[in-house]
């Protein structure tokens, strides 16, 4: 199992450009998440998905969009990049079991994005 993979690892964008951060998992997890982590800070939830075709906003969704057409993939789209979006972006996935079963979140290696 590759676990959670993210591409690219690094990216520099100019203000106003757009890009898509890719995330894939091969563990057949229902739940997938996008977080951003600013320097010296904790993780903030951008968007999450409970399964293919179902997505919802987290704490800081402005400036981002997501889609989930398959169980495996959960891309994050940045439209009109701004310097405030300079951050490290982590994708994560989590399995769900029967009633009362709670499982850990697995994180991808992250994408370091700089907007100048």
């Amino acid at each position, binding site marked *: 199992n590759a676990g959670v993979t993210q591409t690219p690892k690094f990216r520099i964008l100019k203000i106003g450009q757009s890009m898509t951060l890719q995330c894939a998992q091969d563990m057949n997890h229902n739940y997938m998440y996008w977080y951003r982590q600013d320097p*010296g*800070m*904790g*993780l903030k939830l951008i968007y999450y998905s409970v399964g293919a075709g179902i997505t919802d906003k987290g704490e800081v969704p402005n400036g981002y969009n997501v889609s989930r057409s398959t169980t495996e993939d959960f891309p994050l789209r940045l439209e009109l990049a701004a310097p405030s979006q300079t951050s490290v972006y982590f994708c994560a996935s989590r399995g769900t079991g029967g009633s009362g079963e*709670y499982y850990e979140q697995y994180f991808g290696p992250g994408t370091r994005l700089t907007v100048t």
Partner: protein
Amino acid sequence: QQPVQSPQAVILREGEDAVINCSSSKALYSVHWYRQKHGEAPVFLMILLKGGEQKGHDKISASFNEKKQQSSLYLTASQLSYSGTYFCGTEPGDYKLSFGAGTTVTVRA
């Protein structure tokens, strides 16, 4: 609403102990603990579920007081490999974790 972690940072010598606290204003179903090394992704340590269960992982253990909505992570006989930033993630039962700002642990020889 994000949980509050304390202290923000702690410096230890090898073999010393430390406690990291995490508190939430919301009713919680579970608390997750992660460790992150510089430039890497967070790595899962343990989950504590409602019920006040204490867990252990080598010389790292944790407790969860559901009445107070607080969790504590205990680092015992610290090793150099324990250095990193520790995050608690709290969850009311909706599969969405809110993370604290982190506690940076530095273990020196």
